[in-house]
């Protein structure tokens, strides 16, 4: 395309979109700069071309645009970010401009922020167990290096604390390699961003962190590009520089709301709760930028934080996220009120990749069965609690009473751990301790040999 073309005057402004008429040689997705009558420059992207009319999505808002004086400059290229290792230890805004007072990185290659789809035949299936030190995760929803697992939460719950704890404690047992962190804030409070920065500083990891901050009072439309800028950098660090990258993105719901704002302005057909039909594909274009690929030693692991409006897991944002990510960690307000930390609701939580990264040769041979048995037995606890709430605990059978004991132990000791950092062996042993509260006949998901090896009959009779 031919250099910079300047166009004077806009035809119409609609929400975050400006429409320009009489354009020539504009290309789809190209970056445009809109200059207001006060000389302020705002960036945007071509979203629709219809003959000589073009709609531009402006990242920094369209207030005080006037139809006659506003100038539009077409750049001739799509939005790029300069990627380099120099970015580690730096803080950028939501479009990749330095926020820390230092000049932009000098070296580096310009890359299109939209990236490209990883060819499925180029992927390496992720199998390396990440020990987070958190029993509910390591034992029952194991995180794998190269996996994407969101935290489903709602306001008032300690998702930030949990994410920070994972970042602090994540290790690959038996390996030296450290994680590099890419932190992406989309519409979050200054306090929350500061909390993460503080955490990174305390753990002495700041020089291994790149931060992209679009805060609550930053332009909302900018959020639609922030994760793309950040993931482009993450891909560079992982696949070009062979680093293990952990990406924390918060809050996906803010991102989706910004996307909805653009969709509404464009007149896209709304589906559930006004979100556009392509929300699924759009989210996938972020979440699928995770994993491992042939020819590179690095990896990208994603931990997006999704706040569920009204704590409703069927809301389109958590719902579509769960359909794309490789599992989810669900936080539960009820456990939180009981003072249990982390308040992870294990039953609706899931790790889809744990099946190939645990067990013999990975963690411990009893791991898959212990996890499966804990699930089965804890699900039973929920049913029995329901019955008990109606007929009273005294009326329960002996076995059912044992289940209640198991349930209490499980929540108070297995789930609840505060800032303790447990090894996988400690986690599994604790799981057995809980299971020992149940009669052995109830443990049909464990193998005979495992019961013989680990189950201590009556071992828990004395436990509270």
């Amino acid at each position, binding site marked *: *395309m031919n250099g910079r073309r300047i166009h004077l005057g806009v035809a119409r402004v609609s929400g975050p979109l400006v429409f320009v008429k009489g354009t*020539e*040689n*504009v*290309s*789809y*997705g*190209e970056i445009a700069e809109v200059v207001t009558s006060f000389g302020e420059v705002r960036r945007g992207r071509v979203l*629709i*071309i*219809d*003959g000589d009319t073009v709609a531009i999505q402006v990242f920094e808002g369209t207030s005080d645009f006037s139809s006659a004086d506003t100038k539009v400059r077409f750049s001739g290229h*799509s939005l790029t970010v300069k990627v380099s290792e120099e970015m580690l230890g730096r803080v950028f805004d939501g479009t990749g401009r330095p926020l820390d007072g230092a000049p932009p990185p000098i070296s580096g290659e310009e890359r299109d922020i*939209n*990236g*490209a*789809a*990883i*060819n*499925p*035949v180029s*992927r390496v*299936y992720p199998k390396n167990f990440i020990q987070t030190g958190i029993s509910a995760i390591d034992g029952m929803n194991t995180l794998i290096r190269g996996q994407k697992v969101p935290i489903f939460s709602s306001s008032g719950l300690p998702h930030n604390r949990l994410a920070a704890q994972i970042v602090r404690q994540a290790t690959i047992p038996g390996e030296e390699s450290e994680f590099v962190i890419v932190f992406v804030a989309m519409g979050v409070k200054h306090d929350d961003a500061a909390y993460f920065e503080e955490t990174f500083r305390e753990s002495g990891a700041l020089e291994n962190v790149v931060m992209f901050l679009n805060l609550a009072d930053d332009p909302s439309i900018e959020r639609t590009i922030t994760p793309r800028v950040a993931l482009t950098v993450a891909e560079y660090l992982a696949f070009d520089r062979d680093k293990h990258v952990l990406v924390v993105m918060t809050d996906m719901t803010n991102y989706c709301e910004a996307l909805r704002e653009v969709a509404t302005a464009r007149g896209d057909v709304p*589906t*559930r709760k006004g979100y556009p*039909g*392509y929300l*699924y*594909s759009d989210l*996938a*274009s972020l*979440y*699928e930028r995770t*994993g491992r*690929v042939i*020819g590179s030693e690095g990896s990208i692991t994603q931990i997006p934080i999704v706040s569920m409006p009204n704590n409703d897991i*069927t*809301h*389109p944002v958590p*719902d*579509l996220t*769960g*359909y*794309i990510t*490789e599992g*989810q960690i669900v936080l539960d307000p009820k456990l939180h009120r009981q003072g249990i930390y982390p308040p992870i609701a294990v039953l609706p939580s899931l790790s*889809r*990749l744990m*099946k190939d990264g645990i067990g013999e040769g990975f963690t411990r041979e009893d791991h*898959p069965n212990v996890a499966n048995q804990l*699930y089965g037995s804890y*699900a039973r606890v929920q049913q029995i609690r*329901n*019955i008990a709430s*109606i*007929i009273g605990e005294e*009326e329960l059978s002996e076995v059912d009473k044992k289940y209640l004991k198991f349930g209490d132990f499980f929540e108070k000791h297995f789930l609840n751990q505060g800032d303790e950092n447990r090894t996988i062996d400690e986690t599994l042993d604790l799981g057995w301790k809980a299971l020992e509260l149940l009669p052995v*006949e109830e443990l*049909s998901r464990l193998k*005979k040999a495992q019961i013989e090896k680990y189950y201590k009959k009556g071992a828990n009779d004395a436990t509270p």
Partner: protein
Amino acid sequence: MATKDRERSDVTTRKGLITGINAINGPVVKGSGMAEANVMELVYVSDERLAGEIINIDGDIATIQVYEDTTGLGPGVPIYRTGRPLSVELGPGLIGNVLDGIARPLNLIREKQGVFIGRGVQAETIDRSKKWTFAPQVKVGDAVVPGQVLGTIPETPILEHRIVVPQGVSGKISSIVPEGEYTVTEHVAEIETENGSETVTMLKEWPVRRTHPLQKRMKPSVPLITGQRVIDALFPLAKGGAAAIPGGFGAGKTVLQHQLASWSDADVIIYIGCGERGNEMTDVLNEFPKLKDPRSGRPLMERTILIANTSNMPVTARESSIYTGVTIGEYFRDMGYHVALMADSTSRWAEAVREIAGRLEEMPVEEGFPAYLPARLAEFYERAGYGEVGPERYGSITIIGAVSPPGGDFTEPVTQNTKRFIRTFWALDKRLAFARHFPAISWIDTYSEYIDEMAKWWKEEKKVDWRSLRQRMLSVLSRENELQKIVQIIGPDALPSDQRLILHVASLIKEGFLQQNAMDDIDRYSTPEKEFRMLDLIAKYEDRAEKLVQGGLPIYRIQEMKVNIKLLTMKQEVADDKLEELDAIEQEMNQEFDELEKSLVTSDEKKG
């Protein structure tokens, strides 16, 4: 013939180029000067030659869905017509391949572009240079009819590729090559017909959107044996039938589809990853070469074709991936094979349809879907079927579509409309999945409309009374479901003994039979013989327990029987080739019951 045609059409389309793009909205572009073009015509957009298809013509404006990213295109960019509909190339070399939504081999794309998929790659589905061993099955002078085998190619050790007489062609063989090595474009046979002579090569090209009908449709009457107990025993699917698997995220749709692709007794598997995860395709690619087909002992990849349009690949190619897959299925069906096609997930395909409709500004009717959603679903599922494909030869396509309802709510349009065109509905239940009861197929909401035909097959082929055993298990499960509602109010101990026995037997069926762990080497697949023996054992258990409980034996004595844990774990402890171990369990069970009976008699005597 296809190569030549293509070269020719390239030349003419360059000449026939009329004008270029004048509007772009995401993957949809408009071009003017297209009055002569046809809907469904394949076009190439820009000099990068991005594949596209005309989906609407209004006056001289054609609307085109582009199968690749449109970033960087602009007004005036040329559009090249081809005069041909969007098609898929067919021939030896498909098996074991991974194709994208418009049938480009992903391995070729990787060779050309590396880890990421760039734009505008030209990659032929069928390798033109590779030589295949063709063995003729007819002689010069033989009269041939449609569907008759002209020659065979050992495509993989378990799949013989058959070149058959095309539909609508009959006549006399005027030439046929001797056994030898040929490329797919060489003439291997010539048929003298009433309308001139027809040359045959190993390479074919079929339009993807048009149904290629069976010569004669027949009623599906043979089960697709899946090795999945809840399916084979309770809710079967027939070869040539259609099934849906609806379920929220994490309910187990994909694992079930992988299980069906692995263990079903079909000849050819077509697995379409439609708008789902990249790693799930990688998983299949890693596992299938290692897993062995239980019938032939050969790697599963030797009968499998994968089609991958992952969720981050272009949404337009998601729409076409389903048609590409089913057209390949029809091709193998016409060779006389039983094809099973899995589409995970049809909801993503429906959403792709919705998105294109939205860009065309078509009127949405429900949840943004266009009014023709049911018609599109019907067209797809109706391409399933069982029937005659040639003289005395039969083939089928079985279609199994996963459905991903928003919020897990089955009242949404895709689930509801799919229900109208399928006959087996495997409803996945979130609560079962939470308890890790897998497959999470709800025995309450699930149904199969193939019961009569399947019962007949079991009776005639396996000489067993499948129907009554099935009915019996279902009735235990449905009575348990009713009783659970009462238990919620009064607790289980307040129920009379016979009802508590039902709860107990139901839990044996659920945990010991219906739950099937896809990650366990023994459990993940059960032969029909093992399934039947297991059910039979549970039925015998119930019979004897019932008598004892009626005779006054306290229920806890049954609940505490030592054989219970054996019945619960026989699925994973007893391998398919060691079924005699089930006899041992039966013996043990009978002994334990005998002892209980004795104790009952003696206590009766004491009382009397």
